[in-house]
């Protein structure tokens, strides 16, 4: 059985999914791909936007989520820190 993801892991998963989609994604797609409930996704998105890791973007009548440079940097730093912990077996 898979263990539950912690807060930072969920945030990183969301950022990774946006990057894999070329830097922008629709909210509903993000919700399904990140395996989150609607309520959870709104809470995490609020935090991501507040920290300037992603931003809302409107194209026509569709709403997208865009990853910011700060979001990309966070993603890289997260992977480096995880690599560091793995190296020490932590």
């Amino acid at each position: 059985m898979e263990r539950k993801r912690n807060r930072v892991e969920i945030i990183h998963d969301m950022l990774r999914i946006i990057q894999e989609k070329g830097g922008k994604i629709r909210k509903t797609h993000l919700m399904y791909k990140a395996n989150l409930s609607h309520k959870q996704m709104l809470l995490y998105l609020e935090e991501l936007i507040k920290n300037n890791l992603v931003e809302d973007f409107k194209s026509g009548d569709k709403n997208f989520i865009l990853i910011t440079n700060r979001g990309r940097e966070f993603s890289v730093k997260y992977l480096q820190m995880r690599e560091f912990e793995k190296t020490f077996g932590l």
Partner: protein
Amino acid sequence: MVKIVFTPDWFLTSDVLIEIFSFLILCLFFMLAFKSYQLSKKKSVFYLGLGFFLIALAELSTILTKIILYYDTDVTHEIGKAIITYEIVKSVDIFYYLGFFLQRFLTLLGLYVIYKIPYDKKLTLDLLLSLYLIFVAALLSNSMYYFYHLTALVLLVFISRNYYKVYRKKKIRNTRILAFAFVILALSQTIFILSKLNSLLYATAQLIQLAGYIILLILIMKIIKNGKKEKQSGDNPRHA
């Protein structure tokens, strides 16, 4: 992780430079652990950072003590530039006593903290007993210089063993490099124990220690590089 035994006169500046290099590497590990702790809030990562921080402080203590010892003209006049022995240092000033005591105490404590983490994941109350024993070991090293190196060697061997076990279990290349770096540092301590026999051995031990820290620097570079290019499995996130 250096001590005063026999420093050849041609090596007086080089050993300080090696200490500065070691200090910078230890600071890098501390910073990586601290940043990692900020993200994950894992106590084990915090204690790992603490271990590196203590050893970095020990290096700083050595650097400051040696700089004053080597370059303070009054002192160098007194000790005669050529060979710095433990006995001479003993006679110079309580400052040097304190400087090298701090170096030994903090290094042993830092190594102990790093050794304990993979097993306990947290530090327990027996730290107080260990703290006392490390204090005694550092104190005894004032009169028996090899006692410090022997204790550091034992800790480094156990740390290397820990990381080798982690490598055997998880097969992570970086962990193998980490274990190897600690083996090299352990080897340098073995030669430090013998350094009283010949001043050349002291320089050799320092150079081996430098090799250990260079390997740790390579490891840092690999961690940063691997982190940048790591890819995760695409559409299969774990359940929230």
